[in-house]
């Protein structure tokens, strides 16, 4: 499993990437996609939607189950990766390229972890 150093991670397994001046990109971690299995459907919010840190803003469906995706920050959705709706399998094959949304006007943030902290977090979760 890979956890790029330039990203931050949440306890609910999303990754966050700072793009430029106050805009971030959100996706699902390699660990999350492995746990969920083959993804076949993605539901995304719309451009302009307000999102809240810690609340769900999208969901992904594998053959077997639906999983919710939580927003790491509060803000406004300024771009939606609509290609993902046609190619949900790209979340499995390239999780760090498969961004869900871009968010701007950020007003609050969940606790974010570094790659190293996130890896340790997964290990401790798996030992429970």
């Amino acid at each position, binding site marked *: 499993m890979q956890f790029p150093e330039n990203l931050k991670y949440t306890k609910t397994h999303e990754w966050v990437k700072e793009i430029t001046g106050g805009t971030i990109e959100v996706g699902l971690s390699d660990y999350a996609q492995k746990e969920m*299995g*083959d993804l*076949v*459907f993605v*539901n995304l919010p719309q451009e302009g939607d307000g999102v809240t840190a810690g609340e769900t803003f999208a*969901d992904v*469906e*594998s*053959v*077997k189950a*639906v999983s919710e995706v939580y927003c790491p920050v509060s803000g406004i959705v300024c771009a939606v990766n609509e290609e993902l709706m046609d190619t949900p399998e790209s979340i499995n094959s390239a999780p760090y390229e498969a961004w869900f949304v871009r968010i701007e006007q950020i007003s609050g943030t969940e606790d974010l972890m570094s790659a190293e902290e996130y890896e340790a977090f997964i290990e401790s979760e798996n030992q429970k």
Partner: protein
Amino acid sequence: MEKKTPLYDAHVLGGGKIVPFAGYLLPVQYQSGVITEHMAVRTKAGLFDVSHMGEITFEGKDALANLQRMMTNDFTDMEKGQARYSMMCMETGGIVDDLIVYKKEEDSYLVVVNASNKDKDFQWMYEHHFGEVEIKDITDEIAQLALQGPNSLEIIQKITKEKDIPKKYYHCIFDAEVGGMKCILSRTGYTGEDGFELYLKASDARTMWDLLLSVGKEYGLIPCGLGARDTLRLEAAMPLYGHELDETITPLEADLGFAVKQNKSDYIGKKKIEEVSLIRKRVGLKVVGNGIIREHAKLFSKDEAEIGYTTSGTYCPYLEYPIAMAMVELGYSIQGTRMIAEVRGRKIEAEVVSLPFYKRIRKGGTK
């Protein structure tokens, strides 16, 4: 505490993702994933551990009479080595379980039941038996493997003498020898594909599992988990107890009339099953909107009346669209009828289609 099947170690070693299911620890999928496993069964071959299934024997001079009384199907014209699907119902017509009856000898039958219902079934059979019959639960002594897919026959031919291979679907050889091991070799399955189910001593299970996987490798055989088993049976529109079937649903509502023989003089539930007029029915739905409709979604007509609910639903890897099975009011069960499912607050449109969703093209000689 869940039980382990004789193949638990093989699943862990093979990278299976283990989950509790019907009281057993079983792999939901291997590293290859549900879609790959599903497609292997449709195009090549897949191997499943189904040792959780229950096996109950009926022996004695009244064995047949007991089956005739307890089950909806008719077993009087069965030959030795034949299998028949049936329901076991309550007086109310509700289904206790759906099962397969194998005829071994004139006074000896094997009944294969759902793992989740096994204890309830055995209790029910014990309470309703009469005359000279011994009913025995032999589940713990027996392992069951399912080899499914178009290449299954070629794989089994590699390690079995021709005379031990059943030629027709729903037939079996009781004293077959496969890879040097005694087993019941049955041409049955729960995937909608040609294939075999092998019943064998629990102590031989691991040897048989490893042998089949190594012999089957060149035919594309891979181990498969419960996830693919569920998507395959759904695509083939096979009902699953606890979803399409339960104690409040009759066999005719479940559209399984082929397994109810109304000309039989009597069986438990006959009156209610045959005399009550149908007001609802199991149907197949193809999703025409965006999203997946899973079980327990409420269904609404165009004019927003609640008309039923889904019983199972998934994305179909082979058909490449989402499908569901549902129980709907009879007036909405006609092909082409459109309805709306409510899924997590969203509305998804679906259309009634004919069942099964997927039907294999039979090769000559299998039926």
